[in-house]
């Protein structure tokens, strides 16, 4: 059963130095508050896994808490690049970071394989690209048809952290809108934390709603506004201006460090 905990207790209990951690949420429901709490608690040497690093990993990478990054698209959606991600890869600032990159299809299938407790996923993809030589993917032949396919290894993070609109008091979680790979990430991981906008007495069925039962979740923490500047459909709006602001502000190392110090490190409850 999921324990209802405060966000800081949940991070303290579930995330340790050196862990592989997947904060998921595909352009929606991105768990920023949890990412900020990990930074505040000073976790180090993390392997960060996420299809789209987005601003949340740009912040974590820029604060030097990642030793490795597994991803498929490191951009600021609709705006441009991620400057802290780039600086880490191009100039080892603030520390060198190892990368493993995939296509979206590859990452999605890796999570799905992890959720199914399969060693790998079989798919069409990667063939003919230079990615084949630079990542964990292997050619495989279909034993039934002879078709040439590829296999990608399952993802099994130590911890998955996702954000959802609501949970009930038992810790059952419901999310709706763009569902990304959150359910797969939770099921693929050894431990999981779901932060939610609100705790309710009863989950009300929503069109397209995905319910994750409490018994596959380690902890649920209430974190209103916890996906900002991403959003939680029907509760908060995506802060597109912030994504544009980030592009300008984060280009400069000192400006970035100052912003993080003022807006994340100094904040008990962060909503950005």
């Amino acid at each position, binding site marked *: 059963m999921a324990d209802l905990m405060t966000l800081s207790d949940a991070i303290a209990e579930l995330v340790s130095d050196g862990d592989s951690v997947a904060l998921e949420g*595909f*352009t*929606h429901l991105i768990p920023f508050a949890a990412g900020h709490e990990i930074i505040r608690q000073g976790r180090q040497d993390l392997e960060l896994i996420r*299809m*789209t690093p987005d601003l949340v990993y740009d912040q974590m990478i820029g604060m030097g808490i990642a030793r490795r990054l597994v*991803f*498929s*698209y*490191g*951009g600021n*959606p*609709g*705006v441009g*690049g*991620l400057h802290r*991600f*780039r600086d880490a*890869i*191009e100039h080892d600032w603030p520390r060198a970071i190892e990368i493993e*990159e*995939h*296509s*979206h*299809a590859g*990452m*999605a*299938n890796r*999570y*799905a394989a992890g959720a199914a407790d399969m060693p790998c996923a079989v*798919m*069409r*993809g*990667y*063939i*003919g*690209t*230079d*990615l084949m030589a*630079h990542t964990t993917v292997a050619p495989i032949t279909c034993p039934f048809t002879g*078709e*040439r396919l590829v296999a990608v290894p399952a993802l099994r993070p130590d911890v998955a952290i996702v954000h959802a609109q609501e949970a009930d008091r038992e810790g059952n979680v419901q999310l709706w*809108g*763009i*569902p*990304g*790979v959150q*359910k*797969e990430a939770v099921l693929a991981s050894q431990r999981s934390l779901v932060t939610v906008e609100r705790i309710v007495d009863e989950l009300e069925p929503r069109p*397209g709603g995905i319910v994750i039962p409490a018994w596959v979740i380690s902890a649920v923490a209430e974190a209103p506004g916890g996906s900002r500047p*991403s*959003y939680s*459909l029907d509760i908060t*709006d*995506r802060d*597109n201006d912030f*994504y544009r602001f980030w592009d300008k502000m984060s280009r400069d190392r000192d400006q970035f460090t100052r912003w993080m110090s003022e807006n994340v490190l100094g904040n008990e409850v962060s909503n950005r």
Partner: protein
Amino acid sequence: MSVATPDVTAGETQTIVAARRLRDTKTVFIGVGRPSTAAILARMVHNPDLILVYESGTIGAKPFHIPLSIGDGELAHTADSVVTVPEMFNYWIGPGRIDVAFLGAAQIDKHANLNSTVIGEYEHPKTRLPGAGGAPEIAASCGEVIVVAPHAKRTFVEKLDFVTTVGHGDGPGSRERLGFRGRGPTAVITDLGVLEPEPGTCELRLTEIHPGVEVDKVREETGWDLKVAEDLTTTEPPTDEELSALRELLDR
């Protein structure tokens, strides 16, 4: 609402040319930026039944505004169906259910292969770009691919620094050898004109030039010895309807 004026920008022409390509398309897969604008414009002017599919899992989205990200709330709210990422790639893109996909890139070579990974060496990149995203599988499996990119020498290069996405590989037969289902890139729409693969060689050549652009200018901005089609046409200038719809959309 703005009124169409004769001073059309190159970017407006590029968007409108991209929108026109969707006249008879049933389903289009789009990222953000100019392709998204083009697809919304196509729904307004050329093809009201066009089905927009965004990578975020929103199938049949009907945005009134141009979204900043592929995950904007309006896309989920207006979609016919919203699916997970594994479902998007395994059930919708992989089986070739989408007719046309728009892609962009930092580098394009003469066989319309694309680089969106690094400029320079992979291990020590001069510029680290965002990476593959959905592009490799989208380009392999969607019915056809239309590339939208600014026409510049640093983009249209002789040799890619990294092959993120295969277009026509090293020429005829490449896609078949790799087992790809889609036809691959059928056009590259730039702010100067339109390049299309030449039947027989799959090499991109200039087939359409935007009004007021000189062929020499296009050659100058292309990093290989660009062939020009014998029947090169000049792009039909944007109509008042197209222009005012585009400007109204951008003003929303």
